């Protein structure tokens, strides 16, 4: 399949309301259920092992006007929380049977319980993902939390999450994540052949479709990309950091590249490529997945890693990707990203890596100021 056709397919899928995506899948799978997870990470494997469709709950972007949620959440709360609630009030997630939230930030935690109160007919589960990465007890705790989610799904939907099915789902998602890692590696090597907008659309579509279907699409893309034409331009190679939760408008990603950057690494939809390598081993799949969360997770602003300074993961990412600079792009009001910005920028400065900051909101629709700032940054780097 041609690359452009794949990207167009993904673009179409991403443009559809989440409820419609769920409904379409359920129409083809009578009796099926769909469960959507709020960023950043949730064990899609467990949802999949129950025979359900795992989806990403990513807010309303530019597609939904706030008519109810603004009265529930104050002006200083991030857009994704409000638009996610609005999706519920406007019935735009009606086809989704359940929602999973976790302790990524204070707003997300409150959103989870407010969702449950306002939409009592939906299955809403809250996961406490561990912040202690070094305790001798953390792996067992994490496994118990994953088992609790599985039991809640079983209770709610009358579906079984067997260890055999979960092991198979882990294998499936290992395959999916391996292909996403391959795509990211390809972009580092040949950024002129795969734009960040394209990669983002493919990635976001992966969070809206069964993994088996996505794997077929990614294989076709990986097979076609090397032969794709593209002339390397004199652009600055950058790492994009801080977009792990609220989704940037496509226009922002396009402007970054038009303004003279190759984005060679990013933290977009980080939870869907959460592990640095495969979830390994044999045996109890809950224990394996829990241990992988503790020991094989990518650096993230929503997880404390006691074995590494906050800036180290980003500096490593810059070096691994051969990047020249970092563009921090936290969502407006995103406390995890805004706090990490300080320690990360200090780390980058110690390592002599240039950086700049541009905030965004999912509803942002004019990008000229951002374009101007990035062009100035790029020019100052390229012509210094």
């Amino acid at each position, binding site marked *: 399949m041609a690359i452009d056709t794949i990207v167009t397919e993904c673009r179409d899928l991403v443009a559809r309301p989440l409820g419609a995506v769920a409904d379409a899948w359920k129409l083809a799978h009578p009796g099926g259920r769909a469960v959507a997870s709020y960023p950043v990470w949730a064990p899609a494997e467990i949802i999949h092992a129950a025979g359900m469709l795992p989806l990403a709950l990513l807010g309303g972007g530019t597609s939904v006007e706030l008519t109810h949620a603004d009265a529930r*959440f104050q002006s*200083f709360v991030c857009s994704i929380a409000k638009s996610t609630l609005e999706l519920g009030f406007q019935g735009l997630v009606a086809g989704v049977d359940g929602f999973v939230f976790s302790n990524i930030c204070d*707003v997300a935690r*409150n959103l989870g*319980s407010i969702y*449950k109160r306002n939409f009592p007919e939906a299955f809403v589960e809250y996961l406490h993902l561990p912040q202690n*990465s070094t305790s001798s007890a953390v792996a067992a*705790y994490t496994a118990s939390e994953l088992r609790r989610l599985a039991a809640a799904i079983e209770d709610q939907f009358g579906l079984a999450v067997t260890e055999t099915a979960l092991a198979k789902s882990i294998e499936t998602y290992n395959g999916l994540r391996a292909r996403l890692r391959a795509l990211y590696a390809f972009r580092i090597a040949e950024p002129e052949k795969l734009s960040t907008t394209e990669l983002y659309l493919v990635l976001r579509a992966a969070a809206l479709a069964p993994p088996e279907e996505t794997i077929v699409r990614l294989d076709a893309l990986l097979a076609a990309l090397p032969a794709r034409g593209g002339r390397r331009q004199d652009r600055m190679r950058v790492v994009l950091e801080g977009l792990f939760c609220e989704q940037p408008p496509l226009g922002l990603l396009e402007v970054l590249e038009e303004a003279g950057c190759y984005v060679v690494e990013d933290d977009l939809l980080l939870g869907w490529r959460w592990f640095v390598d495969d979830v390994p081993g044999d045996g109890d799949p809950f224990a394996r997945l829990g241990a992988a969360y503790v020991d094989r997770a990518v650096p993230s602003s929503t997880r404390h890693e*006691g074995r590494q300074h906050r800036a180290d993961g980003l500096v490593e990412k810059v070096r691994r990707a051969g990047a020249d600079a970092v563009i921090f792009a936290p969502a407006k009001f995103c406390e995890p990203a805004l706090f990490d910005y300080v320690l990360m920028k200090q780390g980058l400065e110690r390592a002599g890596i240039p950086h700049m900051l541009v905030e965004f909101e999912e509803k942002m629709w004019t990008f000229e100021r951002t374009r101007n700032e990035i062009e100035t940054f790029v020019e100052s780097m390229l012509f210094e």
Partner: protein
Amino acid sequence: MATAVTERAYQGRVHEQSRRLMAAWMGELGRAEVEGVPTGALMISGNCVELLRACHVLPMFPEVTALQNAIRHKSLPLILKAEQAGYSSDNCAYVKADIGLFLDGGMGPGTPIPFPTITVCNYVGCNVYVKWFEHLADISGSKLFMLDVPFARTPEPSGADVQYVVAQLRELIALCESVTGRKFDIDELREILAHAARAEEGYARCKHLTKHHPAPFDAYFDSINMMGPINVLRGTPGAAEFFDDAVVEFEGLVAQGVGPLSQERFRTVIEGPPPYPYYKNFRNLFTKWGAVAVQSTYSTVGGIWEWGFRHDPKRPLESIAEQMLRENLTNRSIVDRYQQIRRYVEEWQADALVIHSIKSCRLFSAGQGDMRDYFTRELGVSTLLVESDLEDPRYYAEAQIKNRIDAFFEALEHKKLVAKAAAAH
């Protein structure tokens, strides 16, 4: 309006003793570096201060430092210093005031606020705690211990939750032993927990006394005098005695029929932390209307004692874990908080709910519009929502807040008169 309402002039023994006890603790902290006493930074919410005491690590609380700087009108320059260093205007101002204090030379070696020897992040609900203590450990070079407390997402903590926290408490003990060179003594912890339970009992009794009409103290503005001893000094004999005395004093006021104001015209429950930079101004806006807070959620951030939980010396680590997991406001969901407030409104016979929404603390505030919706539409409780901040004076707009408070109590007064007239017929 009726006769002008005034505040009781004499603040009482509770106020004086609280100041004395807290000043003594601050003095110990100021001398810790010179005397070689190990210190441990902790957060207020659902803390394990008893464990640090049993390990002979002097507890210190960056939140207390931040609020003290705010109440003394010193927070803004510190916040600006932090913002100059890269912190966002949208970050929690408590953290910025703390980091700003360091940048301003007011924290660290040779200052009254020493660097902690260990930084114990009791992650009890608030995600900003994780960030704050990462940053504090970064600037101080102290060892960071992340004490991860699973959020209350089931009716009761599971066995796995308790085991996980207890395992971490044991690891914290080992860290403290390595820092102090002293062997941990479980019997010493039991003794400290017995003092803690006595203080908890006293605090709970005080809080139940505000069910009387008039309430003997304001459970929001006056509770600050008790929050220091219960959250910071819990586990000391001094804190236990403080609450014994407080009960006697407040029982005396109840017997005399005396409250904090010359008239108690409205009974409120207040949700959310106070605006520390304008603490007195904010209080005056309620005093004028004879509005007394008979309960508050802020007074339960460290622990909810009025429903009966007490630390149990017979199950020392388990009971510390259970308190951190469930028996405090911050580790419960905002919707659980609705039920806590509902009980306050009903059992303390409040006329209204006042929500003070602060920008800094999203744990408290994110979604308080939904809370207002629940109380006004579903329960029919008169509810006022005002916005400012607990630390950053730039967000306190007195004229706007005053207008809203005045309009609210005017309407409430009218509602009371109509109800009284209807009852008379």
